[in-house]
């Protein structure tokens, strides 16, 4: 008797649960209909490519296709690491992003803190308008500008460098590649990256400034004791994101800045993947290298986020 009751209750519960989807579908079918195309996009252009990574473990050939090609185990990964180029690529990638992080992370914060002190509205607006602008210039144009400005014949920067006794042909110099890459990035993004900190600063409770003023705090002390703690959560989130992306150095700029003379420092994992995959058509090896890169990246991001949550209580999720 009780067992039958239980059964009936369970059935009712199941029905109600299934009913939730059914009812929702009936009442809001239009919402589900809207989702069809975007979900198809995510499946086709995001999740199927993820599944295609299986060819990193196969000897892919066009005739047999992705699933028909014979398995190769970890051969392609071994092939990559057996190549002396592998270490150079990893080192180049890491050094480029680490240098980029060291230079690119603090400067927007300093810029935002400095802008926040300025009372002259016109000056503040001008600095903001001008420093945001390079963010909207394309990578192709930025690299072209670098090539022209640093050109020994045409550019004004090469005269400038020559004046200080430095190598005036920076773009052909492998030792200078990282600096050119990183500092032009700072040039392009620092102003724009400061916006998020400006927003955080604007959200700080004004009574804290009042209190700091009553305590006779100098501007510097006010920055240290009010501004910095106020933007700390934002700083942590930005830091987690950038450390988590340390292996994801973009292809676009490095590829454009490459030339035969600076290849020893400018060849990174992303550009190598492109050359192996699309120019030499070794799909499996290129996919293996790309997969290795993405997985390391994902692990780093998860690790940094966990550590940050433990230590500061702030994380991405």
């Amino acid at each position, binding site marked *: 008797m009780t067992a039958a009751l239980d059964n009936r209750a369970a059935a009712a519960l199941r029905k109600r649960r299934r009913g939730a989807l059914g009812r929702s579908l009936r*009442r*809001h079918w*239009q*919402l589900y209909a809207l*989702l069809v195309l*975007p*979900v198809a*996009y*995510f499946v086709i*252009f*995001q*999740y*199927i*490519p*993820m599944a*295609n*990574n299986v060819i990193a473990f196969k000897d892919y050939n066009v005739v047999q296709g992705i699933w028909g090609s014979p398995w190769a185990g970890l051969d392609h990964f071994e092939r990559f690491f057996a190549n002396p180029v592998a270490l150079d690529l990893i080192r180049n990638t890491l050094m480029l992003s680490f240098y980029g992080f060291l230079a690119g992370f603090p400067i927007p914060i*300093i810029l935002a803190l*400095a802008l926040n002190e300025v009372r002259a509205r016109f*000056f503040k607006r001008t*600095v903001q*308008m*001008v*420093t*945001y*602008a390079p963010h*909207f210039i*394309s990578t*192709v*144009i930025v*690299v*072209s500008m670098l090539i*022209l*400005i640093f050109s020994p*014949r*045409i550019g*004004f920067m*090469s005269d400038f460098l020559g004046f200080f006794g430095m190598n005036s042909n920076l*773009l052909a110099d492998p030792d200078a590649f990282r600096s050119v890459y990183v500092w032009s990035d700072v040039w392009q993004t620092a102003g724009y990256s400061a*916006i*998020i900190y400006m927003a955080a600063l604007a*959200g700080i*409770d004004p009574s*804290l400034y009042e*209190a700091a*003023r009553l305590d006779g705090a*100098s501007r*510097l002390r006010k920055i240290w*004791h009010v501004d910095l*703690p*106020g933007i700390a959560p934002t700083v942590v989130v930005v830091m987690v994101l950038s450390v988590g992306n340390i292996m994801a150095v973009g292809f676009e700029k490095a590829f454009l800045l490459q030339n*035969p*003379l600076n290849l020893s420092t400018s060849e990174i994992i*992303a550009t190598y993947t*492109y050359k192996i*995959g*699309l120019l030499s058509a070794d799909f499996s090896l*290129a*996919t293996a290298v790309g997969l290795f890169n*993405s997985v390391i990246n994902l692990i780093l991001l998860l690790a940094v986020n966990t550590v940050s949550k433990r230590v500061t209580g702030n994380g991405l999720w």
Partner: protein
Amino acid sequence: MTTETTLLAPPAEPEPERRDPKRRSNRVQDTRVDRVFMVGVYILLTTFLLIVLVPLVNIVASSFSSPAAVSGGRVFLWPVDFTLIGYKAVLTSDAILTGFGNSLFYAIVGTLVSVALTVMIAYPLSRSELVGRKVLIGGVLFTMLFSGGLIPTYMVVRALGLLDTRWAIILPAAIGAWQVLIAMTFFRSSIPGELYEAAQLDGASDLRFLWSVVLPLSKPLLAVIALMYGIGQWNSYFSALIYLRSEELYPLQLVLRNVLIVNNTGGTNLADQMAAEQMADLMKFSLIVVSTVPVLLVYPFVARHFTKGVMLGSVKG
């Protein structure tokens, strides 16, 4: 640490338009230390302003100069031997005009497709009635952490027969997870639930409500994501580089890359400069200006909205 923690402000919502919170307290005369500090702040910001501005001014000044002056590296911040022949040459080049037209097409059609798809997924995901919402949001956000990679995505595009078609530029990057997140957050925080209840009482369907109530209220959001997609599309060259073979489909950035970068490694320096070469040098500067003009035209509008966009994104969903 104890004093700092009491001062730590709650992660307040950023309010860009609010007046400077320190305005009142700043009326107090600065101490001498503070005055020195402020001089430092102004010097720092002015330096930064100049570093951003000088290369830009140099490019524009060069583009209005004579070929001989440009080739001789005689232009700094003001045109030398003012002339428009650089622009005349750029604007009569077929490859550049074709590229310009293609880029307009990709930017306009791409933006329409992207904005439509983004709204189609973000709106349903912002509604709590949707069953399976959490899973879908997770699926979208995961693509920010891990992507299929170059070759696996290329294989999908090839399998769909999109190689060397305009769709290869528009479809594979049609939806950005970041834009979905921004749109979702906006719909959830800015469309009051009461409006939906009222519309329901009036017998409006979900689609009708989205079209007649939500979208008109979301113009700032639509502007932000349209600009993000539009400028992203205008500035990108990577998908064209890997998916397109036919030059008549090339977007401007790829044409620029071929004209500005490929035939110039920054290495060689010939003693003898022909007139044609001088002209080629000048054209590069004019080309940079011409290709950046569309972005600069929308820039004042863009700067304001992008600032909002950054802040929309910084509010956790």
